[in-house]
């Protein structure tokens, strides 16, 4: 079991979701997040007072999947979220010890099927 977390540009969310559904991914969780990396923030101007805004809005996608599917998912996200410009985001893959479906108490891969 793997967890794939991807931080992407917000406007890419729809495209990424469509590509993931088309390869058979049946569930995901998204969160609106803010952060910065190499892409710096911007400045805002209010009546002559300039503020620099460091944290930029991004979307975080979380997907749980059987280990053998992880590579395919990463590849799909990478291709659909890429613009080639700085600030496209990152993908993290981690091992997951256990998954429980609350309604039925199913465990492991059964819980995400």
């Amino acid at each position, binding site marked *: 079991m793997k967890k794939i977390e991807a931080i992407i540009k917000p406007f890419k969310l729809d495209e990424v979701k469509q590509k993931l559904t088309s390869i058979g991914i049946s569930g995901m969780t998204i969160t609106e997040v803010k952060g910065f990396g190499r892409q710096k923030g911007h400045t*805002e*101007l*209010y*009546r*002559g*007072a*300039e*503020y620099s*805004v460091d944290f930029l809005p991004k979307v975080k996608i979380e997907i749980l999947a059987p280990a053998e599917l992880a590579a395919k998912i990463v590849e799909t996200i990478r291709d659909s979220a890429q613009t080639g410009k700085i600030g496209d985001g990152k993908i993290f893959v981690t091992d997951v010890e256990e998954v429980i479906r609350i309604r039925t108490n199913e465990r492991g891969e059964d819980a995400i099927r």
Partner: protein
Amino acid sequence: MAKYLKLAALLLFLCSTFIVTVDTPVFSADQAPSAAAPAAPAAPAAAAAAAPKIDKGDNAWMLTSAALVLMMTIPGLFLFYGGLVRGKNALGTIMQSFIIVALISIQWVLWGYSLAFGPDHGGIIGGLDWLGLSGVGADPNPDYAATIPHQTFMAYQMMFAIITPALITGAIAERAKFGTFVLFMLLWATFIYDPLAHWVWGKGGWMGTNGGMGALDFAGGTVVHISSGISALVACCMFGKRIGFPQEPMMPHNLPFSVIGASLLWVGWFGFNAGSALAADGLATSAFVVTNTATAAAALSWMMMDWITRGKPTVLGAASGAVAGLVAITPASGFVGPMPAIIIGLVAGVLCSSACNLKTKLGYDDSLDVVGVHGVGGTWGAIATGLFASKLINPAGNDGLFFGNPHQLLVQVIAVLATWIFAALGTVIILSILKAMMGLRVTEEEELMGLDLSQHNERGYSM
């Protein structure tokens, strides 16, 4: 900056020569309607001769104008200010304007109107004869407006008494203790606004045209804008800076609110300026037109200032420019033509945006730029009235410098200085007493929590 000042000076010079030549024919045509209206408010002598009779058209317009001016405070001003503060202070800021409407409405009926417009005592203050509106009824008072009920005039003036202290709240936003704030407003209205209104508009007041030295202030440049702007400067210094100012970003939490507020101010200001003709006559129309013209010019010039000096035309800049233009044209609105109105507006946008830029350098925390917009804009407007006023527009007014009467400029400058000094000293005294009695600011913890929760136990936004 010197470049812009030079540009402005050049513009001013070019246009001033232009106006004298161009304006005359335009407004000789408008002479007929204003001459045909014997009820022109600034001609009480003529009106007193005829028996006062209520004109239904005038009364309808003046009641409408009163409502328009109320709309400037609620919701105009509270949206303008409310949008500029941080989300945790939204309700607290809205409440300040809202409760002033209630507070001053009662103060005005009980003693405010009598102090401001009651029978004169030495040119300084009105008497207590009209306490509780005794003797202020449906019959017109020819000293002020011969064709509308005295109570209509009173109600119209009430809305001015409301918005003026409300303007000051922008300078002490996000940190005033609510109880102190309420007392401050009540004392300020009584000891500063009411005498000032008497000086300028009261029968026998020493400053104005109703028996005084002849300072021209059509709709309240000195009484409303200079007084609130200068008091705002004193108040923000005495209240001290907000925690974190100016290092921490304090961004407006809802600029669309502010733009809606500025727009409501623009619309309501027709009641403020055109209504100050106190009749539905040609002078009201002239004031309406120059008000809109100056406002438009100032919105454009502030936006251009942002564009040229900061690289982007900001929306808040355009909205603030409109307000600056409205402020600047206020004293001049019944005395100048449309061409001077354009200059007054253009200069107001440049001056006021420069003043707001200076704020952080000078280090005082006038949170929502009351000084930069109302103090500077009001002062410019009062002086501009001394430059551009013309009897061709309003025979009951006077000519300014560019129409051959340099003395008017001197009178305007004296009025400005007197208003500065009186408003500043009065505010220092009131706030010193309140500081010793109850303290001005909320505690540090309450300030960090925000006024909504700490002062009112409510939140503006529950998301």
